[in-house]
């Protein structure tokens, strides 16, 4: 390599995930309005904002699931590709599981990630144990409770040892016990050095989990600050209203 030239991009890595000028329009409606964002630093980044702010769409665009109308996404400096998708653990608001057992759902993800067959069952069981649902390994995934299904989603996402975990309101429909179980798992994941990007509406969750907060409003990234600063001194009137619990339209 000639002296002074940039190193070649790592074609197996995904971090950092960068979005530049991310815009998404549906008809005449602009849902994302030219967002610049970089994720993948240490700790938990919480993406917060009122309904319709564009949070779910933004993370889908960053995860390569939706093409932006304008702007670009790069994973570790190069455009997203399917081969690296297992490096991003993505957990949806409503879990979708194959019509198979909990164990088979996890081994399927491992097979897609290219894990040798001989290792899959052991790794899948370890992932289920980590989510404290190893006893449900042989149960049909779709008869599990809402909380168990979401824990299975997280176990499946973590089984492939992703570089980052992205969760789209994983606890929005769950009771406090299930929410506690999921939050405990997220704290453990963060402690292992895996960056977490979490979408939530819940200010309590911001207090409990966030290292950094990004506030989205009407498709624009209004501010991105450390948690303490966001909660104590929000920079924008919209964020201030949100933190005070006022209705933000």
């Amino acid at each position: 390599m000639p002296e002074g030239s940039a190193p070649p991009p790592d074609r197996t890595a995904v971090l950092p995930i960068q979005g530049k000028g991310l815009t998404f329009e549906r008809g005449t409606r602009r849902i994302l309005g030219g967002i610049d964002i970089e994720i993948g630093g240490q700790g938990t980044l919480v993406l917060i904002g009122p309904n319709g702010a564009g949070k779910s769409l933004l993370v889908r665009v960053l995860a390569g699931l939706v093409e932006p109308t304008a702007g670009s996404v790069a994973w570790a400096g190069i455009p997203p590709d399917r081969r690296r998708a297992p490096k991003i653990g993505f957990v949806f608001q409503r879990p979708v599981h194959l019509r198979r057992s909990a164990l088979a759902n996890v081994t399927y993800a491992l097979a897609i990630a290219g894990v040798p067959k001989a290792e899959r069952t052991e790794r899948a069981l370890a992932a289920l144990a980590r989510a404290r649902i190893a006893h449900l390994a042989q149960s049909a995934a779709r008869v599990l409770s809402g909380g168990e299904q979401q824990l299975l989603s997280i176990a499946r996402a973590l089984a492939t040892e992703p570089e980052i975990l992205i969760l789209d309101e994983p606890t929005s429909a769950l009771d406090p016990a299930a929410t506690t179980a999921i939050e405990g798992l997220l704290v453990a994941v963060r402690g292992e050095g895996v960056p977490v990007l979490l979408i939530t509406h819940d200010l309590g969750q911001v207090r409990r989990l966030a290292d950094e907060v990004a506030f989205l409003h009407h498709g624009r990234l209004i501010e991105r600050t450390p948690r303490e600063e966001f909660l104590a001194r929000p920079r924008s009137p919209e964020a201030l209203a949100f933190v005070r619990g006022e209705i933000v339209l």
Partner: protein
Amino acid sequence: MQDFASAFGEAFRLIAALDASLAEIVWLSLKVSVSATCCAALIGLPLGALVAIATFPGRPLVILLINALMGLPPVVVGLMVYLMLSNAGPMGGFGLLYSPAAMIIAQTVLITPIIAALSRQTIEDLRQEYDEQLRALGVGPVRAVPTLIWDGRFSLATTLLAGFGRASAEVGAVIIVGGNINHVTRVMTTAIALETSKGDLALALGLGFILLTIAILINALVMGLRATATRAAYA
């Protein structure tokens, strides 16, 4: 009335005694219809999966065509296959006309659209449900096909049974291309038509009972599959 009663009695006697002619006809019917269902599955399932997953110009037209072909009149299918297999037809050189192979071809043509259309619907519904999750896992369209077929296996099995039911109950196409030749191409439906016209109600009724039993068994199998799928939360 007395004749009908004795015909019923004779029909049951033929079934109970496993009458050789009756058994031969039933065996050939099953062979032809099972073979046709297998052939139609080999064509219809991948075709249904392809149309469900691929996006290409004219896709809605292809779906419309496949759906419309589900209602193909058997006699028209029989006529088309006859023209293909007759000495003057493009496949006349194979000498298949008036053979069980011709009947398998006709039934395959008849039920392939049914299997393709129903499997497309099953796989497309499943794809809509799984699409985002599979893409998040890094699953491409080609790799998604076996996943969707496996997860839709109970519904697809029901589709195959529907195809088999249609094939085994069909008479118009097989009588044209098979010719209803005794010991060669005589199946249950063509035999029932012939024996009724001859006034031999006993054999016709015996075959009718067996055909009805097969239809009931198929429906029982479908119900069993549904129940299994629901029990395992696979539905």
